[in-house]
């Protein structure tokens, strides 16, 4: 039983009965698609973003760093990547976060696992993938993002790159006097609610635009539009999609609905997933801001390893799906 079935009934009723559009007609189909997707994604976003925001009230970075500074390898990478799933990532916080981790003795590789997972796996993207592709694809996205973060962080850790961190980072003294109040259950729920509200408010316009363009492509673009240029026979489609996605600074909210409609037009799922991950994980502003703590060589390595990880995932999914 499809839990979204009631929304389908509503969309059908609205479009075919209330607006009396012809079933099967291009306009009716496109509008139906738009209404159904919008409601479904709004509900998913509300539930998932609220749940993640609630969990997040337990994962304050100041506390996380104490835990991660216990210096276990690999397990540390796994824990860091897991925590990264739940943390939001604003490129403006990347630098203080990085310095705080390194200063308190969190191994560099573990710090990277966190730094990769936090932007790569985000709840808005997961909710959208669930809504547009089904929960299995959402789980695959989270799992592959997690594996990339663990392995990339582990490799970077093994390479002993400490000398490629800007020297001033090690000289900074971080005050340990910051006292964080313990929050009550009521405060946590309130905080999660406020956070979910502000995230949804921020991303929903993009979702609407994305779904709108997606609905248009769904209704008007010819089938097999992309089959010849980006189909499975083109071996370079994955790396090219990723290379286009890396510098793009767009939020997942707008991109995913558009990409989802391109899949119907012949874009393979792995290629699409790789493109979306590249858009979310790495962006030019983030790379520029990280240059303040990482020397160029380490920065290039970081970007290269994450990019390769995403390309690999793209190929893997084109192959198994």
């Amino acid at each position, binding site marked *: 039983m499809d839990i979204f079935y009631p929304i389908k009934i509503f969309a059908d009723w609205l479009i075919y009965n209330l607006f009396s559009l012809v079933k099967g007609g291009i306009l009716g189909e496109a509008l139906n698609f738009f209404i159904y997707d919008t409601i479904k994604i709004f509900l998913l976003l509300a539930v998932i973003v609220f749940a993640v925001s609630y969990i997040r009230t337990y994962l304050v970075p100041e506390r996380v760093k104490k835990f991660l500074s216990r210096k276990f390898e690999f397990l540390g990478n796994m824990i860091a990547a897991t925590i990264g799933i739940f943390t939001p990532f604003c490129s403006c916080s990347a630098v203080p976060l990085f310095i705080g981790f390194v200063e308190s003795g969190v191994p560099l590789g573990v710090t990277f696992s966190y730094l990769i997972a936090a932007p790569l796996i985000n709840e808005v993207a997961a909710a959208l993938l669930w809504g547009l592709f089904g929960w299995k694809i959402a789980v695959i996205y989270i799992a592959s993002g997690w594996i990339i973060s663990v392995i990339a962080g582990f490799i970077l850790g093994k390479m002993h790159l400490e000398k490629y961190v800007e020297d001033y980072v090690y000289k900074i003294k971080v*005050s340990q006097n910051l006292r964080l109040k313990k929050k009550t259950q009521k405060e946590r729920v309130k905080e999660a609610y406020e956070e979910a509200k*502000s995230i949804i408010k921020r991303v929903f316009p993009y979702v609407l635009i994305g779904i709108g363009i997606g609905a248009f492509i769904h209704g008007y673009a010819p089938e097999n539009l992309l089959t010849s240029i980006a189909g499975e026979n083109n071996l370079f489609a994955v790396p090219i999609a990723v290379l286009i996605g890396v510098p793009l600074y767009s939020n997942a909210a707008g991109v995913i609905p558009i990409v989802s409609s391109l899949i119907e037009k012949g874009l393979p799922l792995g290629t699409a997933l790789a493109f979306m991950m590249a858009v979310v994980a790495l962006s030019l502003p983030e790379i520029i801001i990280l240059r303040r703590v990482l020397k160029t060589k380490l920065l290039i390595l970081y970007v290269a390893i994450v990019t390769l990880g995403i390309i690999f995932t793209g190929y893997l999914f084109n192959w198994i799906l």
Partner: protein
Amino acid sequence: MKIKILGMGCSNCLELEKRAKEAVKQLGIKAEFEKVTDITKIMEYGVMSTPALVINKKVVLSGKVPAVEDLKKLMK
């Protein structure tokens, strides 16, 4: 009252500054604003997520941009 906004100048920091100023205006109190953008100084406060708000040398919030109403409560 001395209010400091810690952050390296991203859009969230600007938004926090805007809202904090609005909160001060609504409360009708006197406050002196200062923006701390130097990362070394930011770290001295022990915060790891920006923007952060410091009122009279005490970090009252970090890593979020609350509503004007909530900021008013913090300033009372």
